């Protein structure tokens, strides 16, 4: 009897093991393209993608079809990327996949994705930041299908009560510089006796890289040299020191805080918040009573050049696919004005192409329009480097360390340290 149980158990195990091993991603049908996306089919983004794929399947004139597979990622980006990494070792990548902007260089450098510039008919229409983000070694490897942006959100009522004339506030056409930003913060701190703005300094996360690099770029600085080989001499130069002193000053003078109250802006506690397009959706659905506006990024007083964050998920073609034509046709279809417009509107994200901006300008809120205009004028993609994760984390640590102003008064020394850490990663 025992032996029988054991035998049954072993057989079950054998079945389970064999069932796991055989997974075919690429379809047998020579005209059917397989595609992986990082979102769930329950989200607005996923639904828009599904309906675009359905449309492609119906309309494609060469008889190409596509099959989409949703692999939702977890909060920290796991899940989806784990699956990509696993597919690499078993050589089972799909024909088309989505990837986050900062992954472009690593994926291209590793030979995972193929250049797709020749397949994209809408290339000239795409925003410069989208091209910047998807280009590695002068070739276009990936196309972002939406954009993101960050602005200074402000509570209209709180600013008015502090005696500020809303008509004098900066716009994308006439931006403001760091000094004016500090002056406004000073006024608000005096009026409300608490930090004026939540800049998201609480967590050490990609946000710090995404939202704080534009300050450095506006000053004329950078993290790594043009050729992407060195940070020493760049990240610890005069421009970096000035930018980092400005950021540290914001914390030191109490204009912002590294320990903000949860939802402080949304609940009317802080008059300002540095945040992105996603907060617009949140304000509409959960905090309709707060009247708010959006201001552009403050610029360096030395250059007065407006630079703002950008970045998004993109489409790319796997380098191992043997269906280049079909995969190229799919990506081309997904990046037409019509498809990009659909995804921007349904997912309420910023548009990725100039023509889409024209299409949706009338349909979006005034706050969203500020971010759209800012994006078109000044969006800057994050650095396209294979070693991006380590570079980004070191930058995040720099910002996070700076906020401990008592421990890090010597900014030059801090930047020297961090630059040499980045150098090590770039080797």
């Amino acid at each position, binding site marked *: 009897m025992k*032996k029988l149980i054991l035998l049954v158990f072993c057989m079950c195990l054998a079945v389970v093991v064999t069932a796991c091993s055989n997974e075919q991603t690429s379809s047998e049908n020579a005209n059917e393209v397989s595609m992986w996306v990082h979102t769930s089919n329950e989200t607005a983004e996923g639904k828009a993608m599904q309906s675009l794929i359905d449309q492609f399947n119906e309309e494609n004139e060469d008889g190409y079809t596509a099959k989409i597979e949703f692999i939702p990622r977890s909060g920290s980006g796991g899940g989806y990327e784990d699956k990509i990494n696993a597919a690499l070792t078993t050589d089972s990548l799909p024909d088309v996949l989505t990837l986050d902007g900062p992954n472009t260089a690593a994926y291209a450098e*590793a030979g*995972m994705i193929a250049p797709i510039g020749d397949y994209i008919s809408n290339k000239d229409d795409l925003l410069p930041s989208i091209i910047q983000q998807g280009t590695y070694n002068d070739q276009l490897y990936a196309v972002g299908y939406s954009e993101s942006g960050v602005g200074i959100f402000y509570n209209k009522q709180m600013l008015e009560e502090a005696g500020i004339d809303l008509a004098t506030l900066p716009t994308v056409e006439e931006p403001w510089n760091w000094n004016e930003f500090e002056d406004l913060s000073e006024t608000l701190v005096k009026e409300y006796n608490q930090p004026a703005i939540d800049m998201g300094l609480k967590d050490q996360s990609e946000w710090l890289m995404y939202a704080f690099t534009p300050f450095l770029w506006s000053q004329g600085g950078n993290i790594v040299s043009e050729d992407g080989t060195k940070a020493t001499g760049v990240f610890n130069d005069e421009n970096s020191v000035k930018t980092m002193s400005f950021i540290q000053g914001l914390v030191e003078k109490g204009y912002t805080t590294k320990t*903000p109250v949860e939802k402080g802006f949304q609940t009317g506690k802080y008059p300002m918040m540095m945040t992105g397009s996603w907060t617009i959706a949140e304000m509409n659905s959960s905090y309709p009573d707060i009247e708010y506006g959006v201001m552009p990024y403050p610029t360096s007083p030395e250059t007065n050049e407006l630079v703002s964050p950008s970045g998004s998920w993109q489409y790319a073609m796997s380098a191992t696919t043997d269906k280049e034509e079909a995969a190229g046709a799919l990506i081309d279809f997904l990046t037409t004005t019509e498809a990009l417009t659909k995804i921007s509107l349904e997912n309420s994200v910023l548009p990725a192409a100039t023509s889409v901006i024209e299409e949706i300008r009338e349909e979006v809120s005034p706050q969203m329009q500020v971010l759209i205009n800012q994006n078109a004028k000044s969006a800057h993609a994050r650095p396209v480097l294979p*070693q991006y994760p380590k570079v980004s*984390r070191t930058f995040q640590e720099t910002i*996070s360390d700076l906020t*401990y102003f008592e421990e890090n008064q010597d900014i030059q020394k801090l930047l020297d340290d961090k630059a040499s850490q980045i150098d090590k990663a770039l080797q």
Partner: protein
Amino acid sequence: MKKFNSSMNLPAYLFLSPALVLMGLFLIIPALMAIYYAFTDYYLLTPDNKQFVGLANFIEIFNDPIFLESLKNIVLFVVCVIPIQIGAALGLALLINKNRKGNIFFKIAYFAPVVLSLVVISVLWLYLLNPSEGLINVLLEKVGIDPQPFLSSPKQALYTIVFVSAWQGAGYQMLIFLAGLQNIPGSVYEASKIDGANKWQNFIHITLPLLRPTTLLIMITTFIAAFKLIIQPMVMTQGGPMNSTMTPVYYIYQSGFSDRLIGYSSAMTVVFGVVIGLITIVQNKLSKGDD
């Protein structure tokens, strides 16, 4: 001793096989692979293109300030958490060892944090410890203590994690202590009562010595578990502020899966494994020498 015949060996091995297969698949083979990768430049995205690099990874490890800092942090963590956690576990076990009404309730209450996921615990404490609106600081203010930064201070963050970890883990060791306590025969206490020993003398001269084997077991298991600290800093501080809560396992995870340097992180795993192995051996030797 009776010699086993081969007809009895076969079923024995068959019964062992599921455990052996699983251990081999998920423990032994990965461990061997990690040792192999440690000597290569394995990059997560180019699995087919691994080059043998000799000791390069190991040389880099000992020049990596973050890894060295993480070792320092984890030693400090272990040194702090072990006495607190084991002390608390013993105290709780003594409290609920007596037959009182409502003991079951306290037993469950003390054990509850062990059952909860560490992520949930970490998020919970994140709210409680929030510097501006967390419950702990509100209470501190009520008794006239200034609000503390806790997790956002490089000086306090690690100790805060020590406290949270001890609070979370103590319930488990408490149960083992409780089993140990209940194994002490009542006759020993009766004898000491006749000799006129007070409660404190009972505890020092009877309870503690008889709990020795239990304590040793708990020491070793807690020790190894404490070295593997990752979830609390990952959720609560991301290794910050200023790397003050970076732990080796967390750094290994970051290097391997964020930076995609599997070779380098495998080398760290090997170094870290050797360190823990050595400490465990020393610990074993010491405890045996005492007996």
